[in-house]
């Protein structure tokens, strides 16, 4: 009896082992859970139109996706199309190791036809400029399929309850509003600050507002210390948020999913989140009445900047089906498909012409694109270890463990250690 079972299973096993490389199919690995259904539908349409089968494989969460891509890259077994998550430096490494195809020529074809279809800010994360510090040959290496940016949301009903008619444009006004909300028992701001990058983004937005891009880049280069008064002001923003009771309890260990849940269930009047939230809020609470606003300014003199980027795909530099992959991506970013995609997934399209047919709340997000920036378009990024100390320091400030001055000192200490090590390396070269 057991023997029969074993033999039967072996048969099943080997049945699953047969593998054929189909020349008319391309494989895409992605991490976007909420867009999976839309992808699969588009793939089916593409197959009907061109006879080429596109297999979308989803790996979630994004950490697991990153690991898989990195490990498979080493094994030189990457699929035809995939995405590179993380910093520009990581992207640069992938390119230098031959995993990413250079698409510049395709973009420039027919008088830059493809390139001019897409928003420059959507393309920017995929572009390496002349003289970039990563030593990558200048060009365009990826294809954006949508655009997202992060701003603040406000719940219209809850604000009305507290007698607030307009969303705040300055921090001073924001704190007044918080006090008013407290009087009617409504919590203030919820954000997914259990996730590193969320804190990084918020802090960065205020850094831009308080001191401007040049000073920030100078700090990254090591020319200005983190103990500079402007940086202390940035840390202070978080301190004030905590001290004034503006933050929902548990914000520091809240994953973004839970923060979204909180705002959708009207547990907080404000949220800090990205444009993907439109889809999420709609699913959890279609009756939610809310609006989009830029984070309220601390410094009147400078602009408030937000982070905006998009999801992009790259073509495997070693794939035998490069042209087929490129053709598919061109189709995917064409106006008609982009409109379909944007409507279904409630995300901002990468294609300029597809913008007219989006959700009204999304257009609120779209308006902020002028102020958008992102680490992947800066000339230089802060070192990982300094970043980590910075973010953990802010967490400490929020829970009241440390003061802004202490955190500034610690971050600066790590920065100096890293700079010193870099100098030593340069010297020994």
């Amino acid at each position, binding site marked *: 009896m057991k023997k029969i079972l074993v033999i039967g299973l072996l048969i099943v096993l080997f049945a699953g082992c047969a593998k054929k490389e189909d020349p008319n199919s391309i494989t895409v690995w992605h991490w976007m859970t909420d867009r999976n259904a839309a992808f699969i539908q588009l793939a089916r349409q593409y197959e009907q139109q061109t006879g080429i089968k596109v297999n979308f494989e989803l790996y979630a969460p994004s950490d697991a996706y990153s690991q898989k891509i*990195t490990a498979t890259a080493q094994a030189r077994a990457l699929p035809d199309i995939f995405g590179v998550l993380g910093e520009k430096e990581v992207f640069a490494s992938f390119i230098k190791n031959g995993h990413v195809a250079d698409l510049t020529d395709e973009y420039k074809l027919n008088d830059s036809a493809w390139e001019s279809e897409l928003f420059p800010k959507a393309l920017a994360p995929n572009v390496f400029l002349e003289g970039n510090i990563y030593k990558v040959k200048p060009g365009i290496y990826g294809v954006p399929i949508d655009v997202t940016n992060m701003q603040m949301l406000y719940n219209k009903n809850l604000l009305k309850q507290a007698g607030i008619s307009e969303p705040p444009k300055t921090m001073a006004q924001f704190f007044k509003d918080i006090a008013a909300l407290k009087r009617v028992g409504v919590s203030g701001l919820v954000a997914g600050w259990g996730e590193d990058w969320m804190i990084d983004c918020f802090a960065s937005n205020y850094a831009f507002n308080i001191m401007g891009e040049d000073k920030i880049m100078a700090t990254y280069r090591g020319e200005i210390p983190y103990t500079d008064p402007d940086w202390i002001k940035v840390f202070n923003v978080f301190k004030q948020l905590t001290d004034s009771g503006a933050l929902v*309890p548990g914000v520091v260990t809240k994953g973004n999913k839970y923060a979204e849940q*909180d705002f959708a269930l009207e547990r907080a009047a404000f949220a800090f989140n990205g444009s993907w939230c439109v889809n999420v809020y709609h699913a959890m609470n279609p009756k939610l009445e809310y609006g989009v606003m830029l984070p309220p300014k601390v410094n009147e003199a400078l602009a408030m900047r937000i982070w905006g980027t998009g999801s992009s795909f790259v073509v495997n530099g070693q794939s035998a089906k490069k042209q087929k992959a490129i053709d598919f991506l061109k189709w995917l970013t064409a106006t008609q498909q982009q409109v379909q995609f944007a409507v279904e997934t409630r995300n901002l399209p990468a294609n300029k012409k597809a913008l007219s047919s989006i959700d009204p709340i999304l257009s609120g997000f779209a308006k902020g694109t002028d102020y958008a920036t992102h680490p992947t378009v800066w000339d230089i990024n802060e070192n990982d270890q300094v970043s980590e100390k910075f973010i953990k320091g802010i967490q400490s400030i929020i*829970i009241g463990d440390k003061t802004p001055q202490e955190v500034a000192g610690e971050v600066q200490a790590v920065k100096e250690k890293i700079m010193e090590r870099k100098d030593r390396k340069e010297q020994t070269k």
Partner: protein
Amino acid sequence: MPELINKNNKAIMTRNYFTSFLFILPAIVIFCIFYIYPFIDIFKLSVLEWNGIDAVNFKENFVGLQNFMDLLKDGGWWHSLGNAGFITFIALTLQNILAFALAFACDRELRMKNFYSVVFFIPPVLSEVVVGLVWTWILNAGIQNGEQIGLLNHLLVKTGLPHLVNDWLSNPSTALPCIAIVHSWKGFGWGFLMFLAGLQTIDKQLYEAAKVDGAGNWSILKNVTLPMMVPVILVVVVLTILGSMQAFILIISMIGRSGLVDYTSVPVTEILDSMLDHHLGYACAQGVTFGVILIAISLGSKFISDRMKQV
């Protein structure tokens, strides 16, 4: 004549050894391919500064023991070990004492024994995802419409203890203890099962004899039950240590990927962080060091167990 017999014997012995060796051959082959080979790789990689993407280049990226030196100075790493140690400590005490108490209670309570042994084993069977979700909801600290959202805070308010309401998972002093308790809750099922089985094999006659001698319940527990359970207790202790030091999925599902500053980091999350930062050489060094520490702890327990057996 003796030489011939010796040669024959030797031939038979060698063939004997060979066929015996064949028994462990499948295990050895699988083990060597899927364990030893990557393991050696990790040792090799731990002396490199490698981002995981570039091709491995020993000449350029060799940094010797630099990764290990950095590790020694890495406060976050040792702190995470301390956190894991705390979770292990709670598991060894709270979890195992609870498991033992439940097994003891069940041993005497014959009626619903089967029901309990099934029910108590449910937490280990549940995936960490469900456990994380349920407990995050229970320990939630938010308020909506004047009411506490989380079950625990809600009950505290209802039973007249509003001053105990806490931000359980974001408060540095309560975050790690909460994790340790949930971890113990999830794990006590294994210990319960092992202790129950062990208790059931104690010869009832020993109990009878002790009662005849006039021993009270406490005395029986101390002098009959516990000594007979020493072997089981040791197996449970070692398995608890190994399992708790390596815990991480539960923490990620309750507190999120980045944790609460370094109040909730554990060695495995530190290694995962290094991997995501693309410091794979450093991650391998962390892995090697962690392995050595676990071996040391296990050898230590074996040493203590041998000593106790002699006693």
